[in-house]
Every structure is written in structure tokens, then in C-alpha cells.
């Protein structure tokens, strides 16, 4: 016998029949327990957990059919084959046996070979059933384990790829998770200058593989934004990172936006995403912004193109960003929602309704079953900066003491000026001074303005007046590109001087550029100009408001600002 020994219950009220059956079963190598009626059969089943039951139909007290029903109910998910012992011939009697849970019949006189065949068949079936049940339990256990892991991973993920400042009053957003982890990422953060960085990413695929890529992406986005890096630097860094860690064929369709309140513009880099909509309050029209790059994580660092497009963005203007899940939502006929339906929503005269209308239309179109991709939607409105909370940047660092008495000169020449943003490097050094760390937002704005004045207006010789009109705006950037190409023997030189004072310190910054300078009046910087919210300007009133003194020298290509502070004793 090639089968594993089983435990078999023989229930028959006729003692001689029971003896024969038991003898046959034992001869086959199985073990046996016995019952003389239905009640005993149930008790023996509970006590001995037999693998197979041979059950006589006609028995005193409780008959075989009643016993079978109880036993099947007690067995639950376990498989307990019941073979009825019967010489009943009537079809209706046999049917009743099947209904009560019988799996097979054997009739008297018992034939050893037939019985053996039946027991062997059920033995194989049992083995298969048990294997299936074990595998199901393993799967269930694994599934449980995986869900738990995913929940923990989700908590970690949420800490890293948190939504930043998406709760700002000028941002409306909707993220629909297709699974615990979805392939869409939506991040927003304030720069030290108060500008907002927004990143919408759509990773290939869903779930864990997509989420894994989102973690370094978010880490870089938040880390570099807080340190004041430019958008293009951040994109480069993310691209290298994703290229390095993602398998071939995995990448992240991305759009990153830098909204500058003071400059009243948005700078956009878009790769691999469907057209976005830019709503103009002045004309009531919707402009398309197109992807002109490959997704992040595809190109090598050398081939990566960080060119951005800049758009005028004045209060009332709105930018709409979405992942392709919106356009690819399907209705019951399998039709796509599509770009045309999406842009038609902007025909509505009230721009306040756009966001909700997009969601409503897509949901109505797709119904219950249409969601087969992650859908993300974001509306970014231009408002006056005063409507937005102040930047709260955490540059927490363990060091309490730091350099307090030093001087540094940092000169940037042609090639560096073309490609490099010196602000993070300089701010990093300044932030080593504990007292300056508390002023980092103010310091960033100050440095950004000083550098922009020296480079854009000084070295490149661009006039800020140009940016006052929409046409001039484009012209400004055209001229800027031309001027950048022909840089020769140019420089911007920073001279930092930090000296300790009694209970405090003083930072003096002198910035000199190779440009032509401009007409200035050292006694008239504190202009409470009505034009302060205009598109441009040299931001001199702003600089003036941030420091203790501001002095221009010579032809206007050299400026000195001073910033002093008292040490707070609590710190």
C-alpha cells in the first residue's frame, strides 16, 4: 500500500458487519475506531477526528443520515469523507444520503477491493485538500504579514513624502490612492524666500515599486528647497538619483513649478505629463503648458535638460496640474475621458468652479468602475503674498557655537555665472553662524536680491522695466538668453565680513559686479513705493527693509549692506 495510514471510523449497529469492515480496514494498514449507532458515531468523531467515516444508514437511536449532517456541520472547513454502508436500492434513499452529506456508497456484502479503491481515492483527495488548505493558510498568513509591512512602510513613507505645504490657502488638491501606495506624488514646500515649489510626479506603475522611488524624490525636494536651491538644481539632483536607483523602464513623469510672489511669475519644468492649463484672469482664457522634456530618471546627467519656461502669474491667475489618470479615466464603454473634455470644462465663466467641476465631470464620466489609474489634481492660484502664512523653515542643527569672526571673498566668473547657483553654498556658510540661522529666511531673500541685482541687471545689463508687461516679460527672457551666451570677462564678487560685537555680531556684505552700474541715491532707498508689488524692480526697498544699512558706491556696481544682531541669552 502506497498510501499514508489513515484513521477510520466504522459505524454500524450490526456487530458482525462491523467486525468484517474493521478487519478489512486494518488489513489495509489503517487504524480504526468503532460506533454502534449515530450518537456514538458523533462522539467518536469528536474524540478521534477520523480521516474517513464508514457509516451505516439504518441504525438505532440516531440514523446514519442524521449523524452525517451533524458531523459535516462540526467538521466545518475540514474535509471528512463519509462513505455510506448500504444495501438500499431505492434511488430516493440514495439521494437522501447524498443530501445529508454522504460522499460515496458501498453495499453489502463488502468487497475488499472496492472498499480499498474507495478509501485510496478519498485518501488522495484528503491529501490534496489538506495541501490546498495549508497553502491557503500560508497565503493568508503572508498576506497578513504583507499588509502589516505595507502599513509600517506607509507610515515611514508618509513621514518622508509628506505633503509639505499643500494646505496653503492658494492650493487646492486631490490625490486618489489606487492602492495603499500609489504611483502619484504631490509635494509642495516654501523656499526660504517665501516662494513655493510644487512637484507633481507620476511614477510608472503602482504600489511599492512606485513608492520606493518617491522617497528619495521627496527627500531631495524638501531638503534642497529648504536650503534655497533653485528648481533646476533640484530637478538635476532628482534625475540623477532616480536614474541611479530605478530599474530600466521605470521613471517619473514630473512637473515642477516655482511660484515667486515677488516676481509674479511661475517657472515650469515639465516632462512626460499631459498638457496643463494656465488660466488667465485678464482674458478669461486657458493657455496650454506642454511637456517638453523626458520624464525624470531617463536621461544621464550629461544629457539632462533643465531648461524651464517662465510665465507671468498675477493675482487671479490659476495653474491646473494633473496626472494622466484624469485624462485616462474610462467610462463603461471603455472610452477615455480625454483631453478635449478636460479643457472644455474651462469654458465655464466662473473660475472658482473649475476645480470642483473637473472632479465632478471625471467622476460622472467614469462612474464606479472607471478608475484604473491614480488620479491627482492640483489648482495653484496666484494671490498676494500677505494672504499666505510666513515661511517657517526648520534648519535645526545641533551646533550652538560657531564661527564668529571671519572674512570670506567669493568671486564668480563667466562660466560659473552661466550655470551655477551660488546661493545655497553661501547660505550654508552663513548658517554656520548660530545667530544667523534664526535669520535664514531674511538672509536668503537678501542674498537672492543682491545676487539677482548684480547678475541680471549688473552683469547681463537687463532692464527691469521690461517685465512690467506680458510681452516685455517674454522679451526679458529672450534677451537674458542672448546675454548669457556672450559673457566675457564678467564677474560677481561677494565679500563677507563677520565680526563679533558686545553681546551680538555684525555681518557686512559687499557685492561688486562687472556691469555698468546705475543711477542711485544713497539717501532715498526707503521708498514706500506704491509699485512695490510690481513685477520687478531691483528690490531695493525690500533689501533696505531687511538690513541695517545699504550703501551704493561708484557708478552703482558695488553695494554694501550691514546686518547686526543681539545674542539672545535664552539660546
Amino acid at each position, binding site marked *: 500500500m502506497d498510501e499514508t495510514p489513515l484513521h477510520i471510523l466504522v459505524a454500524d*449497529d*450490526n*456487530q*458482525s*458487519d462491523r*467486525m*468484517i469492515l474493521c*478487519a*478489512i480496514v486494518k*488489513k489495509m494498514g489503517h487504524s480504526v475506531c468503532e460506533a454502534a449507532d449515530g450518537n456514538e458515531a458523533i462522539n467518536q468523531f469528536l474524540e478521534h477526528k477520523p480521516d474517513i467515516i464508514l457509516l451505516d444508514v*439504518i441504525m438505532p437511536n440516531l440514523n446514519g443520515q442524521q449523524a452525517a449532517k451533524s458531523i459535516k456541520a462540526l467538521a466545518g472547513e475540514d474535509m471528512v469523507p463519509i462513505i455510506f454502508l448500504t*444495501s438500499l436500492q431505492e434511488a430516493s434513499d440514495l439521494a437522501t444520503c447524498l443530501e445529508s452529506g454522504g460522499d460515496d456508497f458501498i453495499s*453489502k*456484502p*463488502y468487497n*475488499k477491493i472496492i472498499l480499498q479503491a474507495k478509501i485510496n481515492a478519498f485518501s488522495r483527495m484528503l491529501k490534496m485538500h489538506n495541501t490546498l488548505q495549508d497553502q491557503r493558510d500560508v497565503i493568508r498568513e503572508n498576506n497578513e504579514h504583507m499588509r502589516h509591512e505595507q502599513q509600517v512602510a506607509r507610515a515611514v513613507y508618509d513621514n518622508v513624502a509628506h505633503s509639505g505645504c499643500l494646505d496653503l490657502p492658494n492650493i487646492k488638491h486631490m490625490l486618489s490612492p489606487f492602492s495603499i501606495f500609489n504611483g502619484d506624488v504631490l509635494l509642495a514646500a516654501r523656499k526660504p524666500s517665501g516662494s513655493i515649489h510644487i512637484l507633481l510626479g507620476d511614477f510608472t506603475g503602482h504600489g511599492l515599486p512606485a513608492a520606493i522611488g518617491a522617497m528619495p524624490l521627496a527627500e531631495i525636494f524638501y531638503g534642497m528647497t529648504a536650503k534655497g536651491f533653485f528648481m533646476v538644481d533640484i530637478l538635476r539632483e532628482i534625475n540623477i538619483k532616480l536614474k541611479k536607483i530605478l530599474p530600466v523602464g521605470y521613471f517619473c513623469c514630473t512637473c515642477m513649478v516655482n511660484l515667486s510672489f515677488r516676481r509674479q511669475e511661475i517657472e515650469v519644468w515639465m516632462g512626460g505629463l499631459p498638457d496643463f492649463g494656465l488660466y488667465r484672469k485678464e482674458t478669461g482664457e486657458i493657455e496650454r503648458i506642454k511637456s517638453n522634456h523626458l520624464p525624470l530618471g531617463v536621461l544621464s546627467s550629461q544629457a539632462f535638460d533643465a531648461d524651464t519656461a517662465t510665465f507671468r502669474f498675477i493675482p487671479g491667475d490659476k495653474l491646473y496640474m494633473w496626472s494622466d489618470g484624469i485624462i485616462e479615466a474610462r467610462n463603461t464603454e471603455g472610452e477615455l475621458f480625454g483631453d478635449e473634455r478636460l479643457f472644455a470644462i474651462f469654458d465655464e465663466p466662473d473660475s472658482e468652479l473649475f476645480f470642483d467641476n473637473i472632479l465632478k465631470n471625471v467622476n460622472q464620466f467614469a462612474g464606479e468602475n472607471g478608475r484604473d489609474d491614480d488620479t491627482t489634481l492640483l489648482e495653484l492660484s496666484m494671490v498676494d503674498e500677505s494672504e499666505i502664512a510666513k515661511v517657517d523653515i526648520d534648519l535645526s542643527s545641533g551646533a550652538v557655537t560657531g564661527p564668529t569672526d571671519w572674512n570670506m571673498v567669493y568671486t564668480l566668473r563667466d562660466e560659473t555665472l552661466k550655470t551655477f547657483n551660488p546661493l545655497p553654498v553661501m547660505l550654508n556658510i552663513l548658517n554656520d553662524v548660530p545667530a544667523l540661522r534664526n535669520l535664514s529666511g531674511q538672509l536668503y531673500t537678501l542674498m537672492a536680491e543682491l545676487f539677482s541685482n548684480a547678475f541680471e541687471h549688473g552683469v547681463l545689463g537687463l532692464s527691469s522695466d521690461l517685465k512690467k508687461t506680458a510681452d516685455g516679460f517674454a522679451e526679458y527672457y529672450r534677451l537674458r538668453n542672448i546675454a548669457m551666451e556672450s559673457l566675457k570677462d564678467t564677474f560677481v564678487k561677494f565679500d563677507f565680513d563677520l565680526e563679533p560685537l558686545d553681546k551680538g555680531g555684525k555681518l557686512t556684505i559687499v557685492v561688486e559686479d562687472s556691469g555698468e552700474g546705475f543711477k542711485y541715491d544713497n539717501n532715498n532707498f526707503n521708498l514706500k513705493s506704491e509699485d512695490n508689488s510690481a513685477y520687478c524692480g531691483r528690490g531695493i526697498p525690500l533689501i533696505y527693509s531687511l538690513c541695517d544699512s545699504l550703501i551704493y558706491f561708484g557708478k552703482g556696481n558695488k553695494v554694501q549692506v550691514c546686518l547686526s544682531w543681539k545674542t539672545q541669552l535664552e539660546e
Partner: protein
Amino acid sequence: MSHLNISQIEELKDIMEDSFGDLVMTYLNDSDTKMMALKEAISSTDSLQVAELAHSLKGSSANVCAESLSALFKTVEDSGRAQKLDDVSQVFEKIEQEFLLVKAQLQELQ
């Protein structure tokens, strides 16, 4: 003429080994008791009881290879189920004779 199926009884002996004697004794005692009960059920024309007892005896007799005896019990069972006990007494007499012969042959085999 044999009252037992000879080839089958050899197989049964083979299966039961040392317990064959016990089996014969159990069968004979059990059948004695049940036949007495059957006789009583026939005289009190309890058709249901007649059918059930005859059914049990039919099965156990078949199992000890007493084919003719089993067939006689089947006739009684059928009559009991049909609730026509008119001719059953006659059949029962045949059963008593056949049972004695089966008994003798089984005891001989031990």
C-alpha cells in the same frame, strides 16, 4: 449443494485471520436474537419492524457469504416494505431451515 459461497468464504477467512471464529459466533448469536424478534414481529404483523430486521439480517448474512439465506431475508424485507405479510410465515420457515444449514457449515469451517 453448498449454502455458502466457497470462494468468498475463503477470502473472508483470509481477511479475518484468527478472528474468523469470533465473527462466526457473533454472527450466529446476533442472528438468533434478531430472528426471534423477527418471528415475533411477523406474528404481530408489524411490517416496519419486519422490514428493518430482515434488512439487517440480509446484510449480515450476505457478509458471511450466505447468499441463499440473504436472498430469503430480502423476500421478507420486501414484503415488510410492501406491507403484505400474508406469505411471510412460509418464507420464514424456509429461513429457519436454511439458517441451520448455514450454521452447521460455518461451524465446520472454524
